[in-house]
């Protein structure tokens, strides 16, 4: 269930929804990287291979913070990619806003209320993986090709 416990954004003032709690947390492997995902909506935990290294002190390569935004309506629009130095920003209308900071190894994003789990997993998770691998300067295309080959063999 998504958490809605920050419905009062006025006291203290949090018009940008920066402080919505993201209590669901897990680790995945994306390519050779360990990714920690935090979210306020269980449905936004991606169906990726779980990290087998259970030690919390084990450093992750990248962190994702994904916030289900109940006040952002509408479906995904055509993506706009904006890049500047170590920062890549992707906007797909108000329904999906993503930012990847390569220097800080962080990916943050708001996912709109009307993005269902299927759309999230089929359209957005692959994009998140690609952005993550690019941020880690891994050859995303090669990794995706490997997975596709594995898929074909299965």
């Amino acid at each position, binding site marked *: 269930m998504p958490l809605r416990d920050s419905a009062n954004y006025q*006291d*203290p*003032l*949090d*018009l*940008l*929804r*920066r*402080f919505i709690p993201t209590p669901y947390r897990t680790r995945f*492997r994306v390519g050779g990287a360990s990714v920690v995902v935090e979210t306020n909506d269980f449905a936004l935990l*991606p*169906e*990726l*291979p*779980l990290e*087998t290294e259970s030690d919390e002190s084990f450093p992750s390569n990248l962190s994702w*913070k994904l*916030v289900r*935004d109940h006040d*952002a309506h*509408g479906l995904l*629009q*055509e*993506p*706009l*990619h*904006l*890049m*500047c*130095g170590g*920062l890549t*920003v992707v*906007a797909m*209308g*108000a329904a999906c*806003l993503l*930012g990847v*900071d390569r220097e800080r190894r*962080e990916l*943050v*994003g*708001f996912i709109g209320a009307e993005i269902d789990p299927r759309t999230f*997993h*089929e*359209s957005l*998770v*692959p*994009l998140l*993986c690609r952005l993550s691998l690019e941020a880690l300067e891994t050859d995303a295309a090669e990794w*995706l*090709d490997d*997975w*596709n080959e*594995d*898929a*074909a063999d*299965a």
Partner: protein
Amino acid sequence: MSHACHFFGLSGLYARFRATVNNIVTATFVCDRRTLPFRTEFSLAGTRCLLSTNSHNALRLSMPWQSVLNGCGANFFQMKIIESAAFESEASALPHFRGLGHLVFAMLGSKGFLNFDLLRRRVIGVLPPAAARDAHFWNTQLLPMTIGLLGTTVGVAPLHCACLDRDGSGLLVAGNSGAGKSTLTAALAKRGFAVVSDDWTYIRCQADKLLAHGMFAPVKLLPDTIRYFPELRHAEAKKTMNGEIAHEVDPTKMFRSKVKAQSDPKWILILERTRVAGCSFVPCRPETLTQFFEKNAEKLPQELPEALRMRSGIIRQLSACDCWVLRTGEDPMQTAAAIDTFLSEM
């Protein structure tokens, strides 16, 4: 570019993951020296904005702000603006702002898309040609939102209050939402006060002295204020950035009042509505004023401890101003007259 791929998870648990991707990447913009060949700098609320762009329109619209570069502080931020006809968005979409950590996203409907990086003190964005050449959009929305979001990273504290100037002394009018700050600002403008700002005032410290800056944003009056301002009969109420229907009024045109870019804050009023007739000015203790502004300021992320310290320092310095809670049961015109009389006796 279009591509499809399939993922299969390879964990030891044999968990399987499969997804089909059809990302149609229609617009990719890169901000670098090659794509943004034009450079200039201008001043916003006493800070320097270093603009890089590919847009002649953006250069032209920054020119009026270049005239106040002298007297700017050393703090600066970068603005990288791409003008592109490839930007497309729903024309009816309302502006939508979201932030996580040091990044803030601003979807501006048909006006464009911006991203603010508070750690690197930088705003990057894509504007369609219509917005890139729209002076009203630049002066009343884009530049105020830029200093509002990046201000705390360059020594400027955006505070939710109006600022007026009376013979060289600044009056800040604060109050909770709905207290009537904008209506009172318009009433004071009609009495001869110069308008510095309406909704947001940008305070910075220069040589141990506070300065309150405005951004020439219009005064926003709700349609029901027409009973106090008959001039509004000829003005059209429109949907504003936050979706409210309101008259956005240029006080120089509507009330023939003066505007000033900045003022020295001397007095502060915290406006409260009451059902009791008359106006009372109750002295306000510095700690009460500090608490009020801290409570009404946007929470800042932990990534910006210096910005938080700077803003709190400015708020503490403001508490040295003469401050009163103004409880009024009068209409805005009578309240403005009472303020005028009260300040003239100070």
